[in-house]
């Protein structure tokens, strides 16, 4: 089923193929518009977070730093209070500054995704190569375990974990999520290694007496980079979805602002019915932008790894 997975990615990428058609196939594949747009969105989000932390007063994330439930500048809340420039994006139900919350919460949310994904990826690369190269029992074991673990939704195991142990740190949560992020890279790499092992250049390298390590990391890994990138991005998405899910159930880190936590508090305080759209809406829109950015990057990477996609139509 693993090679079919690649086809799937290819097919996904097929969705917006028209735009790609404008590009000449001899252009640098890394400069396809989806990849650029996606990366642009993600970088913009990271950049805003970074600049924001440098320029905006992050102490405003604390309870009671402003009047409660102020709207963003240019709007009015149910009580007829207008937004003020001290809190350009308004305040939440405890008087915390929304801009400060977002400026701190957004990088935190992205960080959970990145850390979980990097750990998962490293594990996956190791296990995938081991399975593909060593073969035999080891391969069977790794294959079966990754097949099994890919079916188990991480959210539910983590719900059990976090409801028992209570408050967790950002890092611990990332590590826990990483425990469910290694399966698809493992399967991907294993399948690629199996097919590449038979290919000419690897055979050549083996004949010329290169060490297994050399073959794995010098000959094969570079060819896998686009796939790995794609898998990495897909994992970041899954990790963030899982983290947001846990946070919306009230199970994430309690005192550290994350986008999911802000949404959880907003829902719990009746923000929808009180017309406090900025409270739940801004983090929701940021997350949506993040996910769409990640999707575009993923589609773009597919075009890099599947040249077939670039020439059709």
């Amino acid at each position, binding site marked *: *089923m*693993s090679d079919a997975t690649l086809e799937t990615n290819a097919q996904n990428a097929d*969705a917006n193929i028209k735009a790609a058609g404008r590009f000449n196939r001899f252009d640098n594949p890394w400069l396809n518009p989806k990849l650029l747009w996606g990366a642009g969105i993600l970088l913009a989000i990271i950049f805003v977070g970074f600049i924001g932390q440098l320029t905006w007063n992050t102490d405003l994330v604390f309870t009671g730093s402003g009047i409660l439930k102020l709207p963003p500048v240019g709007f009015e809340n149910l009580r007829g209070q207008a937004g003020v420039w001290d809190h350009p994006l308004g305040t939440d139900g405890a008087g915390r500054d929304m801009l400060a919350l977002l400026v701190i919460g957004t990088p935190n949310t992205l960080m959970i995704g990145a850390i979980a994904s990097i750990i998962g990826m490293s594990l996956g690369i190791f296990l995938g190569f081991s399975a593909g190269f060593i073969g035999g029992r080891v391969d069977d074991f790794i294959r079966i375990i990754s097949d099994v673990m890919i079916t*188990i939704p991480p959210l539910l*195991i983590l719900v059990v974990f976090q409801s028992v142990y209570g408050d967790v740190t950002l890092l611990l949560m990332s590590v826990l999520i990483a425990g469910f992020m290694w399966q*698809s890279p493992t399967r991907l790499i294993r399948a690629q290694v199996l097919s590449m092992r038979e290919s000419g250049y690897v055979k050549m390298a083996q004949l010329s007496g290169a060490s297994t390590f050399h073959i794995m990391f010098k000959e094969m890994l570079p060819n896998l980079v686009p796939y790995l990138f794609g898998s990495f991005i897909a994992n970041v998405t899954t990790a963030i979805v899982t983290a947001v899910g846990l946070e919306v159930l009230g199970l994430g880190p309690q005192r550290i602002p994350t986008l999911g936590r802000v949404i959880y508090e907003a829902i719990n305080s009746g923000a929808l019915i009180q017309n406090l*759209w900025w409270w739940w809406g801004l983090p*929701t829109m940021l997350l949506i932008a993040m996910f769409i950015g*990640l999707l575009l990057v993923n589609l773009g990477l597919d075009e890099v790894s599947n040249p077939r996609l670039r020439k059709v139509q």
Partner: protein
Amino acid sequence: MGKIPADYIINRLITFLLTIWIAATLIWLIPRFSPVDPAEIGLGRMAAGGAFVENSEQILAQLRERLGLNDPWYLQYWKYIVGLVTFDFGLSYANVPSPVWTLIAQALPWTIGLMLLSVIITFLIGNAAGAFMVWEKTPRVWKVIIPTLMMFTAIPPILSGLLLMWVFSVKAQMFPLTGAYGLQVVPGLTWEFVGSVIYHGILPALSIVVVTFGFWTLGMRGLMITVQGEDYVNLAKAKGLRPRYVLYQYMVRNAILPQITAFALKIGLLVSGQILVERIFSYNGMGKLLYDAILDQDFAVIQGVSFIIILMTAMSVFIVDLIYPLIDPRIRHSEATA
């Protein structure tokens, strides 16, 4: 349609059983390392209700005995596994006399119903959109709108749920904010009740639909493009094969296969997504049960719900795995790979 090789089925079945067993073990193992004593929590619940508890040591000992905490770990584990096989998850800590299974049995039909509702809507909308995208007479606007909407496949349903809730329940007041049926309606097989259930189900279902319909759209679109004249289809026709055979053997397969694979891999995410949608809509299903249990720290219910959802996921994957070789001839011919 050939036969599915037996070793393929056995392989899949083993994976399925192994999945369940590993998940069940994880769920059992995790709370063992916690410093929290379930008996103390039981006592705390009494204290919170009655404000005063005498003979607490005695009650603690009784609770430990009843929860089987005095048994050695392997006996506890064995009892737990035997319990799971018979859907016996013990007693809920928070709703004291109710067995966990009773609570799950009340919630499960809602979750499955919502799932069916959203799958049906997804199938209809997805395929229609796919066909629409390829059809020559489709207005240009739609050829822009549909791919834009498909960007939504990237986001988790909880976010689409929030947006839909805001637009249709809070602002337009077209749909109810929460619940699975009207408070005035008495459950039963009446049109009023069924109507109310569908009315309450539409928004939660739509939140799932907008993030999943893309699968079917892509499949249908692929199919339509293929129908419009690929070389191998023409070739097949030229070879004089019957049109229906061509349609099935070449086109459906090539268009649908990758979607099914992708779908199988996403089932887990979809189910957990629906759980979260149920939580924000306070829909009477497993998601609400799970959320309430988290609030009450009702570990027995949390374990039971998690297990059942994992079981559902694994079963769906297993079924997809069984259907797969019917469509993909490679599996029938080659040895079953992962």
